[in-house]
């Protein structure tokens, strides 16, 4: 594998992770709790797209959009039924509750579709081969959608009234409310945006690999890691964290640590050592630990600690 191929793979991974980490971090920013049901909702989105794509025979792009809207609305419903009643509770209580929600969601999907992996009805991808790397059209789309979503979010946050209200609510909910911002309405929008993005991420991951009830749980650690790495609550941090994590995961398996240990051949021993692929999920965890030890507030951090 060439170096450029590793970078391309990292960017693909980062685009998927960013869609998920962004939603996690803005929900945290406004509601002050770590939503452990976040990646499960992405999985729900992937299955809703599956109904429309395989069940009803719609093109995957249409199915993905319907799924993003439906999952976004579904998350508002969950908020009304559960989280709204806990606005005054401490973070830990809401966090544990979100874990309960996540378990219920994952197993409901598992009860309906069974535990096995399934595929969308998309034609087999013929990769575009260049001298340095190969990439499938789908992977190009993943990057394009990832970047577009980030740009859209930036525009929303800085050039719309909603964005301004979101930033105000994040800074000081009480003050925002006193200035006439309907914080409950903002919360509704935040859920919709966060979970639609997550659903889109879920569909993209499902298209590149397959969909499975455990797919949400399987990415919970990298997604949290990306959000924490960038400074939880900071949307640009989440994007940066996703990129850093994408690079780390791919380079982690690419680097020959034997060469690193003997300083590129300077020391008189040589033995190849690569991280076994079975440990790929561990890479994000190790990075998480290092970040927490060195910079607990993340790379970009957050303006202030409430």
């Amino acid at each position, binding site marked *: 594998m060439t170096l450029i191929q590793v970078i391309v793979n990292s960017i693909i991974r980062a685009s998927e992770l960013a869609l998920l980490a962004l939603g996690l971090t803005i929900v945290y920013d406004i509601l002050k709790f770590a939503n452990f049901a976040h990646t499960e909702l992405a999985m729900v989105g992937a299955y809703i797209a599956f109904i429309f794509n395989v069940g009803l025979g719609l093109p995957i792009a249409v199915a993905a959009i319907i799924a993003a809207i439906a999952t976004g609305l579904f998350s508002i419903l969950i908020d009304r039924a*559960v989280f709204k009643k*806990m606005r005054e509770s401490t973070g830990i209580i809401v*966090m*544990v509750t979100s*874990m309960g929600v996540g378990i219920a969601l994952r197993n409901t999907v598992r009860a309906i579709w069974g535990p096995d992996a399934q595929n969308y009805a998309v034609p087999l991808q013929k990769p575009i081969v260049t001298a340095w790397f190969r990439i499938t059209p789908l992977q190009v789309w993943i990057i394009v959608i990832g970047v577009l979503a980030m740009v859209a979010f930036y525009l929303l946050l800085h050039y719309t009234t909603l964005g301004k209200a979101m930033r105000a609510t994040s800074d000081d909910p009480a003050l925002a409310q006193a200035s006439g911002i309907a914080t409950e309405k903002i919360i509704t929008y935040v859920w919709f945006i966060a979970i639609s993005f997550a659903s889109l991420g879920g569909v993209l991951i499902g298209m590149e690999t397959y969909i499975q009830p455990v797919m949400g749980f399987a990415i919970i650690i990298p997604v949290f890691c990306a959000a924490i790495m960038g400074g939880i609550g900071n949307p640009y941090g989440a994007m940066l964290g996703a990129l850093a994590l994408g690079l780390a995961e791919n380079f982690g398996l690419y680097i020959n640590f034997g060469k690193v240990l003997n300083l590129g051949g300077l020391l008189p021993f040589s033995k190849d050592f690569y991280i076994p692929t079975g440990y790929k999920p561990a890479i994000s965890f190790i990075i998480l630990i290092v970040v927490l030890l060195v910079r607990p507030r993340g790379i970009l951090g957050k303006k202030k600690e409430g």
Partner: protein
Amino acid sequence: MAFVNFLVYLAIMMGIYGILSLSLNLQYGFTGLANFGQVGFFCLGAYITTIITLTFGLPFILGLIISMVVAGLFGYVIAIPTADLKEDYWAIVTLASAEIVRMFFLNEDWVVGGGVYRGGAFGVGGIPQPLKSYFSAQSYPFFYFMIVLICLIATYLIINKLTRSPYGIVLKSIREGEDRLAQAMGKDVKRFRLKTMAVGGMFGGLAGCLWAHYYGFISPRQFLPLETFIVWAMVIVGGKGNNKGAILGAVIIIIFYHSTRYLKDYIPVEEVTLASLRMVAIGILIVLVMLFMKEGIIKEKKPVY
């Protein structure tokens, strides 16, 4: 007779999960530490005792002690990066730690010591059961239940003593977010958190050890993160911050979990679907208790001054 065997089996499960629940209650109920990786200690305890007794052929009691020590140390070490941080960080780091433990035993099957340790994805079988030769196959589960019961009572007494001592009062003040109060009393909050994770981890390891010797077979598939949340349901339902509640929660959830197994004899539903529905119920139960019965069945005793 089959029914009696089933009851003994249930009682052993209640005992083992009761220990897990007491241990999580010490961490979450009393100290407010969001340990989302309880299954990691359980897994570690099970594998360490297996390596000690099966691979090295050492006696059960050594397996028990060493698995507790290793799991306790593990709890201490994984708490270091998050000792000063908020609960969100605790949750994700402990969750990830438990996954790393499982991943380790899934991937590694090297040769250790005198014997060959064949672990990996297929699991390890033939784990010796303590004093098996002195009992008939019929009476052994009763004896094993006695071992579990003794361990459960010991765990209860130790944790109860701990939480009622001045040490326990410091833990509660940490839980209530009154780090400054604890600091004003001259207590190093960080060290208390680390110690609590170590003590809780020790008992988690004990539960894992008892599990391994009861089943005689362990594999990474038994230690999925879902186990952690079954234990969480026990603590939450029984009543956090109350040791009797933790045990009651274990009893209730175990009865619920195992009684629903027999539903498939009455309603036409597949085993896999039933297993999923059972977990749906546990997830909803956690949400409902958190919404409407935050204190659980047995409320925490608040001291009267």
